[in-house]
């Protein structure tokens, strides 16, 4: 990237009612609770939304997506997708909400407002049954999701901004009782 991004969106997606489906939103909740970000960073809880995300995603230079990813790995495995893997993965609909999200991103390409870079950090799920709680193996992966997100921000120079402070120790088990 030639210049420092003016706007970075961290988007947590997933359905909180379907156990590990909600891991992206849970990770986002922890980021919002435990860190303070400089103004160019925006946290968006995308849930399972489609076109409603057009407004929050418009004009983002960098999109960091947190999500559940089915890649046939062991449950709780951390997965990072970058570059060409991102659109291909979105098209293959690893996760149901990406159906709507791929439309949103396609629309932003049409209007010339798509993010210059998109990265997806995710976790292989264990259970997608009806439950408000993550399974322990997936909850244990939350620190990896958070660390990857913070490292990504650092890559874009956001770490040099003094506004980021860890304000509380991160406990994966908190996500189990977050709602």
């Amino acid at each position, binding site marked *: 990237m030639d210049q420092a991004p003016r706007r970075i969106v961290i988007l947590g997606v997933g359905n909180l009612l379907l156990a590990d489906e909600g891991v992206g939103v849970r990770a986002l909740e922890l980021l919002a609770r435990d860190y303070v970000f400089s103004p160019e960073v925006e946290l968006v809880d995308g849930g399972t939304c489609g076109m*409603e995300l057009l407004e929050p995603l418009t004009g983002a230079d960098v999109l960091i997506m947190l999500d559940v990813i089915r890649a046939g790995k062991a449950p709780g495995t951390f997965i990072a997708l970058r570059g060409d893997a991102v659109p291909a993965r979105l098209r293959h*609909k690893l996760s149901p909400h990406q*159906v709507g999200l791929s439309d949103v991103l396609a*629309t932003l390409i*049409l209007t010339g407002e798509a993010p210059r870079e998109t990265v997806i950090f995710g976790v292989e799920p264990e259970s997608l049954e*009806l439950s408000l709680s993550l399974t322990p193996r997936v909850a244990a992966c939350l620190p990896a999701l958070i660390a990857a997100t913070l490292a990504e921000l650092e890559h874009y120079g956001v770490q040099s901004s003094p506004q980021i402070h860890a304000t509380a120790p991160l406990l994966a088990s908190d996500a189990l009782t977050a709602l």
Partner: protein
Amino acid sequence: MTRITIDPITRIEGHLRIDCEVDGGRVKKAWASGQMWRGVEQILIGRDPRDAWAITQRICGVCTTVHAMASVRAVENALDLEIPVNAQYIRNIIILAHAVHDHIVHFYHLSALDWVDVTSALKGDPAKTAQLAESLSTWKGNSKHEFAQVKDRLAGFVGTGQLGIFTNGYWGHPAMKLPPDVNLLAVAHYLQALEVQRKANKIVSILGSKTPHIQNVAVGGVANPIALDSQSVLTVERLMAIKGWIDELADFVKNVYLVDVAAIGAFYADWLGHGAGITNYLSVPDIPLDGKGTKFALPGGHVPAGDPAKFKAVSRFGDPFFEDNVAESVKHAWYKGGKGALHPYKGETDPQYTDFQDNGKYSWVKSPTFQGQPAQVGPLARVLAMVGAGHKPTINTLNRVLDTAGAIAKTKIPVAALHSTIGRHAARAVSCAVQVDELANQWKLLVDNIAKGDTTTFNKPVFPKGEVSGVGFHEAPRGVLSHWVVINDGKIVNYQAVVPTTWNAAPRNEKDEPGPYEASLLNNPVADPERPLEVLRTVHSFDPCLACAVHITDADGRDAIAVATDGCGTSFCA
């Protein structure tokens, strides 16, 4: 006889499968099947009723706010709790802004491409397109220059080989009938609609604190403190910003959306003869004007036999005319049954999966009835009810659309033509125009009330010992949404959500009568079973909450060909 299966690919609420038997170019039999058990109600049992709205708004994607609204209304109804009028106005503004957003996006971005051929727009003449557009409307975005720019942009986009969102359209399908200039006009408005819909989203996010997933609702009111001199709460500045966006939305809806629906409808006048289905209509009143919900800005109720003259109003929150007449059958749904149709307070959700049985159980969707009959819900039901109730803004707007379409088609189009696939689109546009005016009105009511010195937004709920029950209804974009709650000693003991798509996508009921989708597809034309665009047109006209791809399955049930469809690529429900 060819069997077509339109199959789901997501497990977000609403995952719908449509099966059709086609013979001689017409649909002869149809089945609508919900493909996932939406057992969200189970998750609520034993919880605090004050938390239910936050959980229910996660049922699905776009319709997050509607479940929040229906949920707090259900609990308030159970407690007989009045809320401050400011809270009603703020909720009403959110409800209406959400509805306007939803209708614009559905028409332009999720269903217009069933009717508009994007590749044909490249052959459009910007000058002639501008001439046509200016003859229909005074919209500022209808210049020759604008259309030329859109055409260039589209050509560039197609030239890169990245059709993106347009990839899966049925371009060149024989059922596509619009001339190139009209296609160019529609594509230009598609792009302008992308800009405009954001304004509606901004209104929801300012008042709801967050979008998607509003945060400001509470059992007893809203959590928006009002203080005109404070920076952190609802201020004059924020209220004025909201008014600006409302005005922009109104301009677009009345001068673009309404006109486009009339024009496209006129070119497809043959579709006024397809897709009627169930003409027993149900809606509920909404936009309450007092704290208890006894007076409403927008009427609603029952329109039997498709006749607005037979309209009977649902008159207040908890009206027994609504509360007592809803029941759900599971005879053809994958639940244990045998007790006949049950009232939602007594509803049971005990799964019993069989395979897809054409004459037996074939859906996870229960089959709701009103007074024992299937009912169509949605904008068409809403508009017919408002016409029946003598709601002047609705009648005037509807007449304007019918007159515009009639002038283009050179024939008089009667109100009865609304019982059709195109009619559902026209009714949605009429509803949207009425709602955007009411949005401005609710804004004024809020501002006037604050100016009187009333800044109350919350009444604290008190939960009694013992059992209470309540229904919360809401006229959501896709129609009647109702949440039913039974509370004992302050905890939820039963909860049922009867969503609009449950009404419309209902399987056959206790008397084996088809639901609205199923009935609407009978005799629907299908020129080419491998590209069943016409089936999608009718299903999409209901604005179903599904994300789907089309699989053409041969008689043995094997996939013969798979065609992804556009215009249904986003998951919507309720």
